[in-house]
């Protein structure tokens, strides 16, 4: 089976329900709020219904990993990162290095929350905004 990539395929169908964020927190982190999600749905003031969904791009050469001063973020096969918790010094440099603000921060643990491209958020999106795709081309991600 090929590498799967989480992608935003229908940004303009998003209703801003945050079901995806709750799903990621709940199913991946076993946390019942939405704060531990590895992605974000952003909304913009005054523009009803303008949502921007930021998901991990699963970069082959991730900026977050390059920025990490201790090497705590390890580039995974097929792109994206995983975290070596013991190496993380909670400096938040990685989160700042992600230009699309996809990499999220765990406010409790003070560590990043890298996406594992598992697709739980996809399962709980009522509007097919998100998808897991085999071809990871970022052109498919107009977030």
């Amino acid at each position: 089976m090929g590498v799967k990539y989480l992608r935003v395929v229908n940004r303009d169908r998003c209703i801003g329900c945050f079901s995806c964020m709750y799903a990621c927190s709940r199913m991946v982190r076993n946390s019942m709020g939405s704060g531990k999600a590895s992605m974000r749905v952003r909304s913009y003031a005054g523009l009803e219904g303008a949502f921007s969904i930021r998901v991990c791009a699963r970069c082959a050469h991730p900026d977050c990993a390059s920025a990490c001063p201790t090497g705590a973020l390890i580039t995974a096969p097929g792109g994206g990162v995983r975290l070596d918790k013991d190496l993380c010094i909670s400096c938040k440099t990685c989160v700042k290095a992600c230009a699309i603000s996809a990499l999220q921060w765990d406010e409790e643990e003070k560590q990043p929350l890298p996406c594992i491209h598992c697709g739980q958020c996809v399962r709980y999106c009522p509007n097919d905004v998100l998808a897991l795709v085999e071809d990871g081309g970022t052109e498919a991600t107009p977030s």
Partner: protein
Amino acid sequence: MNASILYVDLTSGQSRVERDEALFREFMGGTAVATELLFRHGDPKGDALAPEAPVIFAIGPFNALLPVATKTVSLFMSPLSGELGESHAGGRLSMALRDAGIDALVITGRAKAPSYLTIENETVAVKSAATFWGQSALATDRILREAESRSGRKVSILRIGPAGERLSPIACATVDGSRHFGRLGLGAVLGSKNLKAIVASGTRTPPIARPKEYKAVYDTLYDRVVRSKEMKKYHDLGTSSNIVPLSLIRGLPTRNFTQGHFEGAEAISGERFAKDFLVQHTACAHCQCGCIHMAELREEFAPYHYSTNRISYDYELLYAMGSMLSLSNPEDILRLLLFTEKQGWDVISLGGTLAWATESFLRGTLSADATEGLTLSFGDGATYMAVLERIARGQGEFYRDLERGSAWCSEKWGGTDWAIHYGRVEPGGYMTGENFAVTSLMGVRHSHLDDSGYSADQKLLNAPKPVEDQVKDQVRDARWRMVMNSLIVCLFARGVYDETVILQGLDALGLSWDGPGLEKLGERALARKYEWKRLCGFDPEAVRMPEKMYSVQTSTGMIGRESLARRLALYREHTGLQDGKTPR
């Protein structure tokens, strides 16, 4: 649940958090808990706009944890009805309160100067709103969403518009994108406290007693919400899908409840709006249904120059600003709705008051002197817009009065017989018959949402039912809604939340309830509200129909004085309100 109650005193600027596990164990949360807090902190004889009058917000055990458990309840003394003020709103507020670890919020006092309140976990601050006092409800949201943004975190913003600042008893409080504590004048109460807005957010996640069971209940509900027929109607056309069917059965109030058939129904139908104006659906936080329908209004303000605004619409709004005023041009309606949204009025009360004014003018009880030259006519959208502008500017005595609601206006300007209000509250958009009349007269918040009376009337068209059974059903439903409103689940999801799944959910959260316990909660919460209403002066024996309603046709025919009186007596009997007794 944390069972945490945040108390904020705006006079001193002090706040504190108290835990009251016994209260939440006994009354669950939401509306039942808020009612008890009102008993503790409120004065049923007090002035709604006095500094000491409390405003209470509460959420329940399901909020932000299960699909479509999105509502926050607010209780206060209503400046409109003079008794129980209760209003519910969605948006992101219940999520934000949950994230902050707060189950109830009690606000008292009056800030010395225009202020707003920020709540971030346990950190509470009262900040100056001097620079944006006077701004519209929409602008205030834009301003605060930037000023109070928290990186990557969801913030909820509740605010009042200029109507609330002017202490209009029909002012609402707006939450996030187009959700409202609409009814009964919360906007004025916040205005009287010099409180322009509340911004809430947090980073907490509640621990779950039984995560495996919780996830299973979640999945059951998720599938029902996304797939069930019950929620599909809200998800697709939305409540405005009712415009045409209700008009067909003569149940859509038209021209101040003169008739229930609106010749312009097709033109303002959900279908029409979807075809020509709907641009997007949005949702309250953690609602996968997404019933918020956004229309786009594009207007040419100069040759080849356009302004574009997005305005939410639904059945009640199209009734109040559409059929009630005989407006069948969607653009007229959207323009009025946008202005209303900015000012922060309750659309239902405002539409009802405009309809009363129009009928008064047409009958000649209201002179052109009083209206200072404006000629009110049903169907005249441009004049209605001019009326709203005058109200907003406070231009002229009559216009300053209009934002006090139809009861107040008719007592001063005449026309009480055709001022359509129940306990001083303008009704929802139903002209279906006696069940709805009972809902409006006896419902604890005089709201169409107190029980399913309007739907019971419609069902009678196909299947007759003994009157006593109808009334019993209404009471049963009113009590069950107390449970829904204590959890707090959006009433649009009442079809997907049955007792079994509710008990499974409570169990997964480690809360021990059973069927009889829920039933008792509903019964008690309703009784406690009637007890409060009585203390405020509500007399269940003395409720009065608007006179006009005895002389118009509803879906189920004329409303009879005797038959209605009989229903009311049955309602009092089945709620235990008979003979001046307060139910226990």
